[in-house]
């Protein structure tokens, strides 16, 4: 699917705006989009593509609610220019489920461990955890704590998040072993 969208502010002069064409793969779908030079990846995802699972919590990269995965790394989408995502593969929370909508082990673990309260920070935490586990399939609990320290949660789900990620880590690494044999 190819979408070309460009929202022109009424009365604005297109000629004056510095725009760029970005080709990016988001959740397995390729897009070609016109964006302003200063458009962030968060604005592209939320406002242009309407993928509202990625949250806007602070706009300054301090809360982690907008965490998405770019090229295997967790990034704060509010600080990441959309233009920089050119040629990259991006995963948002909407792209985490498997075929037929099966939940990712992290998603299931967050449900099973009651690691969700208001849920506003949840997508960002799950994606930060996924990027971390992909790189570190056998983490220590302390490593999980450090990896998720940038994802704020005010409801206080911290310890349950730790248990959920720990649990999912076991499943994910087992799953990978399974794939190898």
């Amino acid at each position, binding site marked *: 699917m190819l979408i070309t969208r460009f*929202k022109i*502010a*009424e*009365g*604005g002069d297109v000629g004056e705006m510095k725009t760029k064409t970005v080709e990016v793969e988001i959740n397995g779908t390729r897009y070609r989009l016109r964006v302003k030079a200063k458009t962030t990846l968060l604005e592209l995802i939320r406002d242009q593509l309407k*993928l*509202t*699972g*990625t*949250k*806007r*919590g*602070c*706009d*300054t990269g*301090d*809360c982690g*609610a907008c965490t998405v995965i770019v090229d295997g790394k967790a990034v704060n989408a509010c600080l990441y220019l959309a233009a920089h995502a050119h040629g990259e593969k991006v995963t*948002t*929370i*909407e792209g*985490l*489920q498997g075929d037929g909508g099966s*939940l990712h082990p*992290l*998603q299931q673990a*967050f*449900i*099973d461990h*009651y690691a*969700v*309260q*208001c*849920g*506003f*920070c*949840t*997508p960002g935490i*799950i994606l930060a955890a996924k990027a971390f586990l992909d790189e570190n399939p056998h983490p220590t609990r302390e490593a*999980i*704590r*450090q990896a*998720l*320290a*940038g*994802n*704020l*949660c*005010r*409801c*206080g*789900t*911290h*310890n*349950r*998040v*730790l248990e959920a990620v720990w649990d999912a880590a076991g499943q994910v690494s087992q799953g990978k072993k399974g794939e190898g044999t």
Partner: protein
Amino acid sequence: MTIVGESLRRVDALDKVTGKTVFSVDFTLPDMLYARALRSPFPHARILHVDVERAKRVPGVRGVVKGEDVAHYGLYGMAIKDQPILAIDKVRYIGDPIVAVAAVDEEIAEEALALVRVDYEELSPVFDPLEAMRPDAVLIHENMMDYEYTPLNFPVTGTNICSHFKLRVGNVEEGFRISDEVFEDTFSTQAQQNCAMEPRMSLAMVDPSGRIAVWTSTQSVYATLRGLSDLFNTPQNKIRVVAPPLGGGFGTKMYLKAEPIAVVLAQRTGGKPVKFQWTREEEFTVPTMRHPAIIDVKTGVKRDGTLVAREIEIIWDTGAYVDNGTLVCRNGSFSAPGPYKTPHVKVDGYCVYTNKIVGGAIRGFGLPQPMFAIESQMDIIAEGLGIDPMEMRLKNAVEEGTVSASNQRIAHTALKECIVEAALASNWKDRKRGPAGDGPIARGRGMAIMHKGTLTPTCSSAFAKVNEDGTVNVMCSTASLGQGNETALGQIAAETLGVPFDWVTVVGPDTDATPFDRSTTSSRSTFHMGNAVRSAVLDAKRELLEMAAKEFEASPDDITVDQGLVFPRKRPSEGLTIKELMQKYFGGVGTVIGKGRFHTRGGKLDPDTALGDVFSAFWMFSCVVADVEIDTETGKVRVVKVVSANDVGKAINPAICEQQIEGGTLMGMGYGLLEELLFDNGKILNDSFRDYKIPTLTEAPEVVPLLIEKPNPDGPFGAKGMAEEAIVSVAPAIANAVYHATGVRVKSLPITPEKILKGLRERGKAS
């Protein structure tokens, strides 16, 4: 019971882990415009002139409004009407809104605001509440006595004191006279910000007919409805308020906040909806903070530790407007003497205007401040008398049937059970103070207890709509803040009717569809709405049983409903499904609805003594024991473990209760150690998560939540509210643990490394 009491999976979790939940900020409407507000850079200034002409001419701008355009609507405010929609004659804090703009995007709205010209005459500001209380202080609200206010406020003429609350029990002078020892201490607490992860949002639309619709991040659609109806002089049937799921509330998403500005802009856009979403900076600087407080406590005791008299004075710094700050003062001051028996009590609470951000409701509603003072002092007294801090508390704690220090007869409490269980789980009797090994680490263990009432009187109502197939929609206005209401209220409904849990859906707040509820605050929903839902479902069930009685030629009392089957108790094989029963009764399609209401009575207190009536429909109690490790070289405190025993009556869903306890513990730890809004001439210096630290996964201690179950006869299935309990005792338990470890008594929050090092230095000098 098979459903109530089970840790069923949260029904909201699947949508949340897949990113499908449409939160308030995710809500959009076609053609909507975006709003921004110009806010005052001065803490106190007269507005001489506002020029918006250039802003209006910016292409893409669809509406510009300034104070005088909407001055005819007058002032609003839940407790005292002291706040204009946009500043008219003067601004009273840095952040006071002056002009608002609606445009096709936020950037254009910002551009337009940059072209607004405001001429100010700066006035001398007052930031210190003690200074603001002086008779010669600059007045922040010169016409305070002309404002409309509710009878729960006691403003003092010619001052900045917007309420002086008084509690008088017994004879405090006599109490001190007969005491063996008297202890006097002063404590202070800081401004804490709520920091809900979702910034607030209000999206307003005004029909050509004038009907107003608002989708908004509020904890009470009905408080918003009443507020807007009052402010815009519009009947309540001409206003619709909807609250989508909120990314946290914690008390501050209440009463009118972003709504009035969204509405006055929407009145000027030819029917186009206007979305006003706050930035994180606005979240830090504009809405309600937890009141900073100064607390003087004087306590008289017998040599055996029996409390005899307490005199407490609390200064509540409520900032530039009241919001519901005077109610925080009332609630916190009333409950300040703590969950103890004390025959002679005098409390004075002064709620004081300053030129700062507005103080208001945040989890705990006025209890974390005085309980920090009282519980710190309980340890000071215990040490002074040579009594174990736990024994000191057990000796004086309220019991069922006794009268508390606030002169309330306690009908239900498991406080002593909480103390005993927390002591057991934390191995209290073996607590060891002092250094851990040869290094600089010192270990300590501290305890604190609390009580808190729920706002009384209040009312909640619910509908139970039985669908054709026997499934049920419960319609109620409890807001979804993350507290698990959909699950817990669903469990109450399913258990009451006798259907499987997944047959019930709880429908969220929309004043066009869901009936009245006071608010999702004050730890009141499980108790009040739980009772209302139970009563609505019983109403529907009564009709079903009557239908079945006819069908089975039996008495309704002999019919039962189980797993969705309706049958005479003695003839279960003849059972019909609810669907079949209704089809037979109606001879076709038809359904049943039930209605339920629950309301509490009380709250009529004498204005001079606060005596004479029930203050709260139930009291919450808990006990916290905190284990800390302190690096005596850096002053850094690490909270290792928190045991939190909570009186829950009956846990409708134990796992969700534990989540509340863990959440309160983390927020309480932030209050105790990390969090503080820092001011410089009224300007908040740390207005981002970079500079204002809340606890993260690296600091999260082990939390041991204990649910102490002792059925509360007034609650649904024995439940009582418990959401706010857990935060209150954490900071004082940490303070007591820090003292236990180091001998340093920190009397001001937060307990920073600097304060501990200063205390250690002073102790070093003394020894």
